[in-house]
């Protein structure tokens, strides 16, 4: 797969085996969007069961095999499988590849003025590990024993007893390898292949976010890989890393040597999973900062505060993991320590949000479609972050843990937070990818309907959480204390359906505009960062003229200048 693979005639060969970071970035984006859609479908089926427990699923009920949904009504095992796979697909196959693989691969080399990634073939291997891991994960539904059924967190001993977990573990190891290869590639590219003059203090915030994300991926994923290998050994070689002595499962004594500890998995899993949630968040913050600076026509407020906060989030993310385990039997003294570190890490996140809001001050704000998404990110991430406070506090977490309050909290950060910002990124960089703009009216329709539906789905969850509605319940009507809040399930489900419908304009707009979108020049948004200083779509090798960087990334409306922006590769002539 040497250099000529890029220009060879056969399209399939040219796309799927090209080592150009732009082609791989697009492949990642489209594959991740497809996986997001699959994960969304699983959630819709779940929502039907939550809204009308025990009633047959309308269309799907007749198609599904009897052991998954006898006469249309889904079994609890199938519900658990849907829940586990929804979580896994959305996190590991959807948002991380979109934010890191898709945008990172395409935009990072452009923004630092490099011709390509440091190791192009490694980049291609990373995509292929991701694609095969994703397909293996999806195919686990049709494997004997069905998909994984013990939540995306797969706590043992349940994960050791339940069927379907082995394929999940193999797919996870492949996805982890893909992310590790990607992280090494990103870090070496950002440190070693910057254009002349692109000092670290002149990097756009998006590049800083990708650097911190790559560090999180690089150092947090291996523990989960080791823990997954141990769980694989438990399942296949009947060792008992996570199985204590003398388990009695459904009346039969479980024949295992015992001596293991279930909490060990939780420690190792959350050691990854907390940095993972920052991996979901940081690319979105990078995209929001690019769009905000561009559309307020003014440099970001407090560049150093944002970069400093991102780096401190990167470091602190590794020392907060056990706030997911306050009531899991972990020692209460350790909970106090993690309570303090959790509160410390909330400070940099708030500092970034404050800097974003203050960046609006004194700007001349253009309400383009990407700007709408970026602006909506701020209040939505605000709700997500604030509802983290009662969960981070040990005492209030006693009541709120494993209730719908938590589901509302992390969905607010991930869906109206990261996903909205990532969609804004698609609208923002679409002209760079294809040289054509996405339709604005469709974009605005998509924005307003998605925003309203997202809030409609997730806000009732806070109320259900306060009423104590338990998480991962196949039949929410079973528990007396969650019967009064059952109508809220119907509200959420209706809005979830509408949210699905509101994505149709986006999908149509995306594929329609590739060929028939309104043609644009190389820099439709008049952005100063280097990714707009090359033709769109950029040729192989990206920059037609040598790049030299003279000043910071967001040189907008300089004093005493006619044009209200100066690209990074142009001198500021006073």
């Amino acid at each position, binding site marked *: 797969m040497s250099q000529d693979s890029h220009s060879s005639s056969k399209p399939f060969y040219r796309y799927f085996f090209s080592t150009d970071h732009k082609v791989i970035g697009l492949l990642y984006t489209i594959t991740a969007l497809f996986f997001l859609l699959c994960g969304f479908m699983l959630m819709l089926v779940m929502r039907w069961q939550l809204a009308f427990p025990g009633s047959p699923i309308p269309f799907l009920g007749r198609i599904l095999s009897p052991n998954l949904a006898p006469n249309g009504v889904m079994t609890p095992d199938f519900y658990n499988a849907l829940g586990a796979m929804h979580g896994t697909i959305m996190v590991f196959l959807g948002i991380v590849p979109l934010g890191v693989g898709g945008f990172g691969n395409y935009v990072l080399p452009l923004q630092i003025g490099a011709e390509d990634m440091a190791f192009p073939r490694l980049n291609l291997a990373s995509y292929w590990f991701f694609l095969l891991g994703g397909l293996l994960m999806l195919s686990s539904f049709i494997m004997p024993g069905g998909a994984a059924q013990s939540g995306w967190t797969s706590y043992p001993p349940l994960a050791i007893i339940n069927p379907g977990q082995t394929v999940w573990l193999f797919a996870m190891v492949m996805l982890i390898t893909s992310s590790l290869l990607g992280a090494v590639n990103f870090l070496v590219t950002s440190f070693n292949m910057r254009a002349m003059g692109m000092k670290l203090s002149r990097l756009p915030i998006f590049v800083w976010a990708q650097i911190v994300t790559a560090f999180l991926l690089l150092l947090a994923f291996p523990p989960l890989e080791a823990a997954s290998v141990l769980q694989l050994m438990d399942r296949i070689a009947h060792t008992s890393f996570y199985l204590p002595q*003398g388990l009695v499962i459904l009346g039969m*004594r479980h024949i295992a040597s015992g001596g293991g500890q279930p909490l060990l998995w939780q420690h190792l899993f959350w050691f990854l999973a907390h940095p993972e949630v920052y991996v979901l968040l940081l690319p979105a913050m990078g995209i929001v900062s690019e769009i905000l600076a561009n559309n307020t026509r003014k440099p970001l407020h407090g560049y150093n505060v944002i970069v400093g906060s991102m780096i401190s989030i990167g470091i602190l993310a590794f020392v907060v993991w056990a706030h997911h385990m306050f*009531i899991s039997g972990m020692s209460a003294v350790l909970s106090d320590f993690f309570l303090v570190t959790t509160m410390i890490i909330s400070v940099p996140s708030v500092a970034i949000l404050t800097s974003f809001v203050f960046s609006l001050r004194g700007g001349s704000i253009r309400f383009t479609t990407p700007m709408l998404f970026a602006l909506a990110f701020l209040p939505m991430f605000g709700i997500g972050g604030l509802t983290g406070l009662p969960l981070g*506090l040990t005492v209030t977490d006693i*009541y709120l843990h494993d209730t719908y309050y938590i589901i509302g909290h992390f969905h607010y950060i991930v869906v109206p937070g990261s996903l909205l910002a990532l969609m804004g990124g698609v609208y923002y960089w679409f002209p760079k990818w294809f040289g054509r703009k996405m339709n604005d009216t469709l974009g605005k329709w998509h924005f307003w309907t998605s925003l309203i539906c997202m809030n409609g789905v997730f806000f009732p969850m806070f109320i259900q959480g306060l009423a104590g509605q338990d998480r991962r319940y196949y039949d929410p009507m079973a528990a007396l204390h969650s019967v009064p809040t059952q109508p809220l399930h119907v509200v959420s489900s209706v809005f979830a359906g509408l949210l699905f419908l509101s994505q149709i304009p986006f999908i149509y707009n995306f594929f329609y505009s590739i060929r028939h979108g309104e043609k644009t020049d190389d820099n439709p948004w008049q952005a100063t960062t280097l990714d707009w200083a090359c033709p769109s779509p950029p040729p192989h090798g990206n920059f037609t003229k040598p790049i030299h960087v003279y000043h910071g990334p967001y040189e907008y409306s300089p004093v005493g200048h006619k044009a209200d922006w100066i690209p990074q590769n142009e001198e500021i002539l006073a």
Partner: protein
Amino acid sequence: MKQYGWGLPLAASSYAGSIDFGIYLIHAVMILIFVIWGVFFTYLLIKYRKKTGVSAERDETHGVFKSLIPDLIVMVFEIVLIAVYAIPVWSKIKIDTPASGNVNTVAIEAQQWSWNIHYPGPDGKFGKTESKYVHFSNPIGLDYNDPAAKDDIVIANELHLPVNEPTVIELTSMDVIHSLFIPEFRLKQDAVPGMKIPVWVKPTKIGTFEISCAQLCGMAHSFMRGKVVVQSRADYDAWLKSHEPQAAQPVSASEAF
């Protein structure tokens, strides 16, 4: 307050009040912060929207750290919240559980999809449990050769507690991780196999409340429900006496079930 509704359920244990105080306080502060930022955010959007001819003013000199003052205030509030509220109440609830010697104790062995409530009986000592004795009629595997096990009472899904007296629950599980969740007591603790975790509660209201499982434990996770009946001391003793095993058979499965 109605037992169940949209807000927090009835507070029926000694520390439920302090947990509710924390939840209400944080939600009040959250809503306040959100409203203030929301107003400021919309003001900025309206005031600084793009007007023809008016270009953006660059004001990097404007105090970057001055804009972080609101965050500082929130951080100070958080530090005070931790020092004054979180750590003391947490240690009251989770760390200094009353010694299980002289206090009314109950053992709960969760299993896949039911709660086995195990009372020590009049001798106040729990019988030893062995996994090899587990049988349909002896779900927790009580070893009847052990004298302390003779008078133990094992009942499924029905926890009786005396009112206004602290009870220590020795929580464990026999197969997977479950989580004992009693909304009214604001009590939630994972039952981890291989670990015996003491949890204490002092009910303050007589009545019947609900146990539900808060940690995914397989197929019937949502159907694994139990009942908590809080009675006056007299009723509690009477109920206990009515459930004691009459003639203690030496070996065969006890009919206490």
